[in-house]
């Protein structure tokens, strides 16, 4: 028998004794311990299926309409110390990008080839390190900013949902010191259940190898619980929406 079989056999053997229902904390929920004699024997019917995860009803509340969700996203982003702005058109967004470029003196930009990010890079007029077809890590590391698209913005948490397909791979959104996300307003979803539904719908069964929620710039509190941004990932997260 190999280790896989040995472990699975042990599991099956262990599961022959049913466990009490979870979260009851009632005395009746206690079962005999194998190998310890003289203890009470009491069986409790176990739930046959797990409760449906209707997380939406219990998670923090999100308003039904776009304006409320947008306001919630903006509030969450501000709490997370991310920058969020929504623009009426591309001209305004491009102008804001150029302003940011000049304020932070960006020399090199990293990005991936897709509609929104390419458009943004065109406006920035700086040399671009494209990650799509593989890249030199040192070159990416030396860029001042990583510009990506995303899969969704989540109002409930102020998160950006990215995948290795939507955001130019795994490193682009974490290696450069500033991550700029370009999104469309239609990409705003209400909550985490909606985000997971979107991932299923968009990708299943061939999911990207990396899918992740980015909730604010990289942070740590490991020194005296004092918040410091940019522990390893980006110090700044900017979300521009059109």
């Amino acid at each position, binding site marked *: 028998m190999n280790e896989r079989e040995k472990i699975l056999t042990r599991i099956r053997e262990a599961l022959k004794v049913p*466990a009490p229902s979870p*979260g009851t*904390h009632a005395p009746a929920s206690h079962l005999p311990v194998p190998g*310890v004699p003289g*203890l009470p024997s009491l069986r409790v019917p176990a*739930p046959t299926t797990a*409760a449906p995860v209707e997380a939406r009803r219990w998670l923090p509340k999100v308003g039904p309409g776009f304006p409320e969700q947008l306001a919630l996203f903006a509030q969450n982003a501000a709490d997370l110390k991310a920058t969020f702005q929504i623009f009426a058109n591309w001209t305004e967004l491009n102008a804001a990008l150029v302003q940011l470029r000049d304020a932070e003196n960006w020399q090199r930009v990293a990005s991936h080839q897709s509609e929104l990010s390419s458009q943004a890079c065109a406006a920035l007029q700086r040399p671009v390190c494209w990650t799509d077809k593989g890249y030199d890590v040192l070159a990416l590391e030396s860029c001042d900013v990583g510009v990506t698209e995303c899969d969704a913005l989540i109002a409930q948490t102020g998160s950006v949902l990215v995948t290795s397909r939507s955001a130019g791979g795994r490193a682009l959104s974490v*290696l450069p010191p500033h991550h700029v996300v370009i999104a469309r307003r239609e990409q705003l979803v209400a909550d985490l259940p909606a985000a997971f*539904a979107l991932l299923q719908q968009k990708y299943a069964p061939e999911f990207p190898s990396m899918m992740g929620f980015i909730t604010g710039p990289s942070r740590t509190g490991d020194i*005296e619980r004092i918040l410091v941004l940019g522990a390893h990932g980006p110090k700044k997260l900017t979300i521009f929406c059109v």
Partner: protein
Amino acid sequence: MSTNVAQFQEAAARVTADTRQRQFIRTALGNYEIARDKRKAAFQSWESARQAAALTKWEAVNHLDTHLEELVAKLEARGTKVHWASNGTQAREIILGIVAAKQAKSIIKSKAMTSEEIHLNEALEKAGFEVVESDLGEFIVQLRGEAPYHIVFPSMHLTRGQIRELFARELGSTSSDSPEELTMVARRVMRHKYITADIGFTGGNFAIAETGMISITENEGNARLTAALPKTMVTLIGIEKVLPKLADLALFLPMLATAGAGQPLTCYNTMYGGPRQPGEADGPEEWHVVLLDNLRTELLADAEQRDALHCIRCGACLNVCPIFRNVGGHTYGTTYSGPVGSVITPHLRGLQDWKHLSNASSLCGACTEACPVKIDLHHHLLHNRRNAATEKPAFLERMGYKIFGIIANDPLFWSLAKKFGWLTQPLQKLVMGTALDPARAWTKTRDLPPLARQSFKDWWKHRP
């Protein structure tokens, strides 16, 4: 007295005597509690969420075999190499084998309690590999040659001044003691490591059976980088980490963040489904997932305490535990400290050697109340005590209880015992708190209340 309990008592006495350090820890965990309560209040129903999380984990753990098989089939279908390890030795051998086959020199690690559990760093270093912990807190305790103080906040026991001195000594940094500057020192050191490391090592918070994914929760981005840059990725994860559905994360990710650190959501929550796939820009060429049993199946076999495998390692029970708050993490001498550590360590490392952790509790239940997946923690401490006493009773203690039982509920004996106590009380007062005092464990720091001249029962008997 076994050495473990003696060490525990000695460490507890030392830490509790350090009122400044205790205050430091209590303040930190008190602030955490404020943040957590605020986030909990934002839930429409935290209690319903807990119940749902407990049910989901119950389903996962009580059908662990089928979920694991699904997980592994899905992982392998995307080109991930899955390994099974029955114990720590096997897990270390598997990982050392991968590292050697890749002719790796350096390994960058993101935080993983499983690796602490199997003492992976020591094994890798002994075999001549450079291992760097990338999580800031882990990096700090690694530089100090210490175990993590807390499963979520590894370096919470240190002041910024101590960290500045450590960085000056070990890294030659000239940073001030501002947390910002110190963090940037670590950032600079680590950047180079990510780029040059041959192997990226991670743990995992959840394994999704439905889609064959490992979900990793972190704040710093170190796990993201660890899983992005090195050519080979290795993930070590306990077999109990399985969740049935991808959508279960919609509940578990915010609950983990809320219960663990008082955050709405941790900064990076990332699901990995395979090595770099065709057409993708980057990612490891190879991904090895090592599934670790290491006596988890023993705990699984104890149906009464099986729910301890629901644990998502959020640290909430440590944070609220008045024992942990006063003795700190290192006193436990275990990988998993605090209430959940006291529950599971006897299963993982021997009941008789570690039962003292179950005894070292006032059974106040703050842990059970805090647990986001409703593990019956403090009652399991009681169950460990029962199992230990049933398996190997202490002769004197058992006799003491037998005699006490006979005396206490016999009106004549009980009345005589009270009389005897009342008469000998003046003698005890003479030696109160000294080595001669039979009640010294109590009286060293506390006065004993006097026995009443007329007990309640005497009053009741003689009342008109």
